């Protein structure tokens, strides 16, 4: 019985660590990533580069956003 309780507690702790904590971190960090992406796009569009080059740089903003989200 005691062994089961300890096992259940360990499982609960593991669940919290793996699922809940990253979720809470994600909730805080994703808006940060979005903000960085918006800033990146605003900067790119102000660069007065050709349109193909601008699209390439906008794609890089999106890749950076993806990396920012996945790093969490």
């Amino acid at each position, binding site marked *: 019985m005691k062994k089961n309780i300890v096992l259940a507690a360990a499982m609960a702790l593991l669940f919290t660590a793996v699922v809940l904590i990253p979720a809470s971190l994600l909730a805080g960090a994703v808006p940060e990533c979005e903000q960085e992406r*918006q800033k990146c*796009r*605003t900067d790119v569009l102000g*660069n007065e580069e050709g*349109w*193909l080059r601008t699209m390439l740089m906008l794609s890089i903003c999106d890749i950076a*956003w993806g990396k920012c989200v996945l790093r969490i």
Partner: protein
Amino acid sequence: MKKRPAGFLCLLWFMVVGDFSGAGFRSAEALILTGRVRELALENPGTDTLYFAKPAAIGHDDENLYILDSIDSEIRVFSKSGAFRYATGKKGQGPAEFDGPNDFSLYGGKIYVSDAGNRRIQILDRKGKYLGGFKVTSFPMKVLALDENAVVVSHLPAALPGDAAKEENLVRCFTPDGNYVWEAVRSLRDGDPVFDTMQNRHVLKACSGGFYFLRMCNDPWIRCLDRRGNISRTVRVDKKYGWKTLSVPAQKGKKLTLSGLFWDCDVSGGFLYLLVPEFSESGDLIAGRRLAVLSDDGSLVGWLDLPVRVNKISIDGGRIYVIDTDYRLRIFLAEEK
């Protein structure tokens, strides 16, 4: 829409801009038919103040010319003959400080600055003294003061990669203390965030009773919205206007098309001036050197050819203020016949 005879347009042109002081031309016909310009020699042409790190917007009032630099986070003010007068603003987060400002609007002795990095609109007097401002939820792209009580702020579509298709309004109106009033203009949505960003790039320009919303590509319609955000008039850009079509790669190996309408534009004397983009040697679409002049019904009135490629324009009757591709201020006058 009823077509106006060319003679009437020329007469209208003359009435609007023909008596413009210092412009140096006598009739509208001369301006339109020659299509040429001559450069005005600036006072102190060698000074650094004429060069910019990243000029984001240019505009003028009755007395001065204003140029916003987004890297230097300042507004430089010049006389209309190009003499540097003063600069205002610096990088920061406090009052009258900016972080990557990207647009401004002049109205009633005030400057409304889109302070993009700080996600706010700041209101300054013409000398740069802080008068007020408000926060906005997304990065502002363009700002236009419609009157003392209404400031229009636009942004880009916020859809993230992988988001389900959704349209959103691109323009929001606020009171000068930041109270939301209305929003308008649905975004174009193709599902590719990069492509959608490109096809929703736009400018806001004041027009009688409200403002113009013009997309830089993929949209032949010029919309005039009233002060409540309702479309009061829609005109189609003349079919004679030479669109520049660019095939671009998109997600999942697709090819999409960007039909370029303009690189920058301005409204003056009831006419719309479009800076026509041109193709580079590598096939990219870049800033051009030709201005198309359109009347308020969208019909093509004439062309003006500049000797250099330019990024930004501000038209003041027959006077053309530009930022060239070397980020330098230059002034041109429409040439007499």
